[in-house]
Every structure is written in structure tokens, then in C-alpha cells.
């Protein structure tokens, strides 16, 4: 069984390689280590698709929540031996921090002509790959159908709301900073949530599990998880609240310490290419590329209202926001 699928895979990879060999002029090869916060399945699919084009590159990956990936990476910086070549994590704020510490390698030749200005880092040190918003998920058996963030402070949601902790998720950190900066209640919105019995712990996956299994009725969560699970039959519904949603761009970047810049650049080129962006669509994400269609289950691009977000300010406020959040919820 295993041998059969293996040979089938080699065959497919070989086929893809012969078909695409002329275009892959840089002939990247060797080992590439990816640190990512993508769910395992998506990370594996991304790597498989990349390897179909660059069969000589041997990609392995480490997956964890963005804060943990960063903790691991910082430990490795300290030991003087960063293991990762490429980072594909939740948010650009973290990337800005790495850029400031002079850890990133610019990829000047990256082709970003198709993207509107402001999507990627102007110095080409990191590149947005998708648009992941955070909104509200509810179990279809729930009585109230929330349409706005403030609905979550209502009595119907008492003890029924779960949200990911910024200590576990990069998207949750950006979400917290965005929400407190945009809602007129600011941090007192979170204090109200706490009074309403809101549980803040774990990562987005835990929120999905709790709402889908009915342990909680409402949750704050990244869009793709419930939209994807709903398509598979899970009893959940995702809402883009009326005030707008927060967003992260799942940026990708090359570490300056990479031992294989050629393969790393090829990986980024692949993610930014139309094919790479179509893969994001197939996986159920809103691709960063403006010409790629939206996956089923999403409103039109123009109908998704994004809350304003200042990356530089967020970088400065990051630690304070985490502390403030823990002091309310722990």
C-alpha cells in the first residue's frame, strides 16, 4: 500500500517536474526548513505543491502557534543556530519585530507586480500570502445569532463564549490589539466579556472544538476554520460582525541565517505565484492575490469590512497588550 502510493507520488512529481522544468530556471535544490503556524494538513499540502515544482528541494516543517514558534526561534537565536530557513507565520507585526532585529533576508527579485501597494513589506523582507480575518463563530443550535461584537456581551452569551488567548495565537494577538483600538469601548469591552463569563484560553483550534461539539455556543475565531468545517458538515456558522473584522496576512519571510537562499526564494516565489495563491483558495483561504477568487462560503471581497490597524503601533504595544489581556483573564 505504502509502496504503491509512494511510486504514484514519485510518478506525479516526476510528471510535474518534466512539465515545469523549463520555467524553474533557478533549479533550487537541497534542504529547506519551514517554521509555520499553518495547520499541519495545510502545511503539508503547501509543501507537496511546492515539491511538485521543485522536486530537488527537500522541505521539512515545524508547526506550532506563532508565539511558540517564536519562542523556539528565539531559543535557537540564543544558541547561535537558528534551524529555520523560511518562516510562514500568522502576522506581520512579528515579522516587523524580526526585521527590526536584522534577522530577515530581502528577496529583491520577488515578483509582486500583481499585488496592490501596501500588501507586502516595501523593503521586500516579508510578503503577505493570505487574508485571515477573525470574526464570530456560533453553534447552529444557539438561540441568539450574533451580528456584532457587542452581541457577545449580551445575557444570551453568558458563560457561552470562548476565545483564543494572545499567548497562544498570533492572530489572536493582532485581533485583541485591533479590537481594543477600534471599538469605542476599548479595553472595557474585554472587561465586559470577562464579566459575562467569557473563557479566554488555548488556540483557535480549541475554540473550534468547543463550539462544534457544543461545549460552548459562541466563539471568536479565524474565518477559515469554521467555514471549512461547515462545508464538511459541522454544525457551525461564521459571522463577519457589523463593526468589521481584524485581519492578519500570514506573511512569509526568509531568515538571514538561511543556508539555502536559492530554495528559500523559490519557495516564496511559489507562494506568491498564481498557482500558489490558487492553492490557498483550494484550502479555503482568502488569497492575498487580488485576482484569485474567494472560496465558497465567503462574502465578496468588498463586503468584508476590515478594521483599521497600525502595524508599527501594534509592534510597540504588543507586550503591553499581552499583559493587559492576561491581567483581565487569568
Amino acid at each position, binding site marked *: *500500500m*505504502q509502496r504503491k*502510493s509512494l511510486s504514484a507520488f514519485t510518478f506525479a512529481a516526476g510528471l510535474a517536474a518534466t512539465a515545469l522544468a523549463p520555467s524553474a530556471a533557478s533549479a533550487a535544490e537541497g534542504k529547506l*526548513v519551514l*517554521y509555520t503556524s499553518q*495547520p*499541519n*494538513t495545510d502545511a*503539508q499540502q503547501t*509543501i507537496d505543491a511546492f515539491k511538485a515544482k521543485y522536486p530537488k528541494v527537500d522541505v*521539512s*516543517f*515545524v*508547526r*506550532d502557534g506563532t*508565539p*511558540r514558534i*517564536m*519562542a*523556539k526561534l*528565539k*531559543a*535557537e537565536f*540564543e*544558541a*547561535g*543556530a537558528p*534551524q529555520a530557513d523560511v518562516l510562514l507565520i500568522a502576522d506581520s507585526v512579528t515579522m516587523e519585530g524580526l526585521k527590526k532585529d536584522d534577522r530577515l533576508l530581502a528577496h529583491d527579485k520577488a515578483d509582486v507586480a500583481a499585488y496592490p501597494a501596501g500588501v507586502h513589506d516595501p523593503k521586500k523582507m516579508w510578503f503577505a500570502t493570505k487574508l485571515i480575518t477573525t470574526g464570530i463563530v456560533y*453553534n447552529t*443550535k*444557539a438561540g441568539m445569532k450574533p451580528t456584532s461584537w457587542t452581541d457577545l456581551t449580551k445575557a444570551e452569551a453568558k*458563560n*457561552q463564549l470562548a476565545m483564543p488567548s494572545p*499567548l*497562544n495565537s498570533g492572530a489572536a494577538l493582532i485581533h485583541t490589539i485591533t479590537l481594543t483600538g477600534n471599538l469605542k469601548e476599548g479595553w472595557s469591552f474585554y472587561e465586559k466579556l470577562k464579566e459575562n463569563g467569557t*473563557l479566554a*484560553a*488555548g*488556540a*483557535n*483550534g*480549541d475554540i*473550534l*472544538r*468547543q463550539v*462544534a*461539539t*457544543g*461545549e*460552548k*455556543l459562541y466563539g471568536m475565531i479565524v474565518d477559515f*476554520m469554521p467555514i471549512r*468545517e461547515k462545508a*464538511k*458538515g*459541522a*454544525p457551525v456558522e461564521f459571522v463577519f460582525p457589523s463593526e468589521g473584522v481584524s485581519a492578519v496576512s500570514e506573511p512569509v519571510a526568509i531568515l538571514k541565517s538561511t543556508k539555502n537562499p536559492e530554495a528559500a526564494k523559490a519557495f516564496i516565489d511559489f507562494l506568491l505565484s498564481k498557482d500558489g495563491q490558487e492553492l490557498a483558495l483550494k484550502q479555503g483561504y482568502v488569497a492575498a492575490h487580488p485576482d484569485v477568487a474567494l472560496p465558497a462560503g465567503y462574502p465578496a471581497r468588498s463586503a468584508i469590512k476590515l478594521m483599521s490597524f497600525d502595524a508599527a503601533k501594534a509592534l510597540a504595544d504588543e507586550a503591553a497588550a*499581552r499583559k493587559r489581556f492576561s491581567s483581565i*483573564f*487569568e
Partner: protein
Amino acid sequence: MTLAIDRNGKREPAIAAPLLPRLRPPDGLGLPALVIAVALLLGGLPFFRLILAAFAPGWQFAPEAAFAEMASRSAVNATWHTLETACLSALGALVVGGIVALTLGVTDVRGKRPLAFAFVFSMMIAPQVAALAFLSLLAPNSPILSLIGLAPVPGTPNPLLGRGGIILVMALHHAPLVAITLWTGLRSIPQSLIEAAQMEGASNATITARIVIPVLRPQIVAAGLIAFVAGVGNFGIPALLGLPVNYLTLPTLIYRRLSSFGPSSLGETAALAVLVGVVAALGIIAGTLVASRQRGKVEIERPLEPYWLLGSARPFVAGGLWLLLALKLGLPLIALLSEALTPALGVALSWQTLTFDKFTEVLLRQAVTMRAFRNSLLFAGAAALILAFLAIAFAYALERRLGKLRRPVELMIELPYALPGVVLAIACILIFLKPLPLIGVSIYGTPFIILFAYLARFLPLALKAPVAAMAQIEAHHEEAAKLDGANLWQMLRFIVAPILAPAAAVSALMVFLVAFNELTVSALLWSSGTETLGVVLFSLKEAGLAGEAAAVAISASTIILVAMLILDLLGRHLPQNILPWRL
């Protein structure tokens, strides 16, 4: 590292010298020195490094920050949570494990072998798998609960999340640990004691209450303490049942700090680690005190045989035990399986929805899960093999050569086993983060750091059986070899090793089974290419892939089951009483 060994090797004989001549001529100094050096490396070094990081960061004695950290609200809460879950779950484990051990040990209930096998198997599946299984069993969408019409309404929190659930699952999970300890004790009760009482006309209940239980008391205390220490150090159960509701024990608090804030928080997490060490050490010291009171070998011609004939109650007692196993092992596993077989979270399992997608995804499509299976096999296998050899040398040295140094050496080896895995992992990061002095190579981020941690953690487990076996070997074999002119190494190789080999082999297999499912140590030590099964399981669940996590859990449990069945078959050729489930 080589430097450390040399330094220790040179220093130790000086300490050992005044004690040893009394026991042995000085030809045996090499072995004790080696054993002490290994004990210092695996047990002393990690512990010393932690204390240093907590109280004297940068070699400057500055304990204020550590004490402030220990007195912080979250640390005090977590300490309290650790103590109460460990104590209460140990009590629960004593009750459940005690009842099972006694019923299988002293009555003529039918089907002891499969019962004991299933009971021990329920402990061999990883704690986080057990937690995950119970979690799915009692979720509002539980297929099993809805089958009997007991499914809670949506919006009902899972009753297992939080304190009560942790205590319950931990008690059930550690109950077999208690039973195994008690079975060893039961074997040391002479049958003549029972026969004497029977001749006096004592009833079965009286014999059990007045003779067996009092004789077993040291083992009962020991079993309770083992369960307590296991509870203090358990990470998988509070991680899955406590973290989602912010109920933190010390190991989960440490993990959260370190994984969220990175190495900048190493100092404060080291302080918390010392705190866990103190809590666990209380358990070990109490255990050592109890154990030291029951020294002395009893020569037993005939060990205890089942004396309590159940008569017409026999099927009911067996039924009760099977029911307990169904609740403890069967239902949660079925819940887990059904989660792995449905297409999405919260979808009811039926013939229409049934799919093997999650299994094919994790077993065939994802390189990382397959690599994790391979890594866990490899790390656990390597640790088991190395420890089997080390255990033979240690068993001989501890029994025959170390004299008064035996207790301190044993205590030192026990430290990493008693420390929670997360804490040991921190110590290893601290030791190996920077390249090693002299050779300039860093083992951080390589498989060797995980292997080192496994060796340190599981050495005491590997020692148990060989030390017990060594204690029963008469010294005259060695004397005879010595008279024939064999030197120490020849004697170890040709006399001691063959006698201890079966015991060492079994210890190695126990190490393998425990290390295979291990999460707590590797959770902080893994890196690209060295992920272990436990890590993958935890990560899948956090990424919202609960079904995939369930599929990995089921597959890993199947491997354990197969390994145990093979062992059981081999067990026919092993000396008696070596596999814990073969009564």
C-alpha cells in the same frame, strides 16, 4: 561534557575511598566512579543547572526574583492546584487500583490474565490520549451519550474540563500503577501465613483485613506516593483538561510561560521548576522513609496463592471488573474512534458519514506524522537499549559496591524522574542551548538532546527490576569467578550480565512503552525532523484537527497493544513475575 566526566571521575574516588576499602579491595574503584559520574551527569547536572538558573542567574547569587516568582499569585494558585489534584487523584488511584489488585491477587475470579492485561494496557496509552478520549466521551455531541439519551444540551460545558475532570482522569490513569506495585507486594507474602490463619478458622474477609492488608502496608504507602509523584509531574492530563479553562498546575503553567515568552522567561520558569521539584521531592523523601523501614529479605518458599474462593459470586465479580474496564478504557476509546471516523467536528457518526479520511491523512499523506511514529520508535528504542546496559552496571554497583553512597546516588538518579518532564526539558535547554564547552558542538535542536532527556528521565524506571534481581543473587557466583581469576569486567560480562539479562530486558521494554508515548519532555525539546508522537498529537489538536489527533492516538495505542501482545507471547519464555500483567 567530557570535561565534567573527567572532573567527577577524578573527584569521586576521593570521596568513596574511606568507605570502600571496608567492603572491597580497591580493584573495584573504576565501576563506582563510573556509576557516580553517570548519576551526576544524568541526575545531578540538570538539577544543579536549574537551581543555578533560578537563584543565581549569571553566576551571581540573586534569589529575590525567584522568590518573587514563587510567591506570585499564579504560582501560588498553580502550586495549590498541583497539590490538590495530585493528592486527590492518588487517593482515587489507591481505591480503584487497590480493589483491582486485591481482587485479582487473592480471589479465584476467572479471566485474570486478560483482565490484568487490559488494566495495564489502559495505563500504557498516553495520558493525553486518555484525556482526549474522556473529553470526547462527555462532550455534548458525544455519540455514546446520545445513544443512551443522556447527551447534554448544547452549551453545556464539558464536565471533565477543570479540576474535577483532572482528578478523575488522573486517578483512573494511575490506578494500574498502584495495582502493579501491590501485586509485587502480594508475591512477597508467604502462603504459610494464610494457611495458619485458615487453620485457626479465620474467614476470608478477616484474613484480608487483618493479615494481607497490614502486611501490604508499606507497598500501599509506596503505591500512594508513586501515584502522588506521577500526579505532580503529569502534564498531558492537565494540559488537555485544564489549559482550555485556565486551570493551571505547575507543569502547565511552566509550559505556557516558556512556550509563550521564550527563553527570556527561562529564569522565572526555572524558579517555578524548583517549586515543582520541592513538591515532588516531598513525595520521594516520604517514600524513602517508608521504604527504609522495610529492609531485610524474607526467604519465601511458596508465595501467596488465591485463597478467597468466590463460589456463586464469581461471575458477578468478574462482571464488575469488566464493567470498570469498559468505563475506564472501552467507552473513551470508542468515543475517540468515532471522532476519528467522522468527517468533521460535531457531525454524528453513521454509516453515511463514516470515513477513513483522517486515518489516511495522518498515516499516508502527512510526512510529519509518519516521521513522528518513526522518531518515537527510534528515540524510545535507543533509550531502552542504552538503559538496559547501564542498568546492569548500576544494579551491580548499587548492590555490591557503593555501600553508604547507595542512597545518595539513588536519590540523585530519581530526581529527573520525579521532576515533571517540562522541568527536565528546561534543564536540558539550559545545559545544551549554548554549544558544549571544548568541543563547541551544540546538541540543541538535534535528536541527542531528546535522547539525553529520556536517559535521565527513565534511568530509575530501568533500574527497578535489575536491582531487585541483583538483591536476590547470592554473592557466591561472583566469589567463585574471582577465585578463578576473573577481573571485574569479565565477571560483569560473564556472570552478572547473563543473570540480570531477563530483568534488564523487561525494564528496557517498560522504558520503551513509556517513552514511546511521551509528550512532556519532548514538548519543549523537539525541532524540525525530531517531532515525537506526543508532540504531533498535541499540535494537531491545537490546530483544530481533533479528528486527525484522534486518528493518531488510536494508531499509537494500536502499536502499544501489539507490542504488549508480543511481550506477552515472549513472556512464556521469561522467568516468572517479570511482566507486570502476568499474575
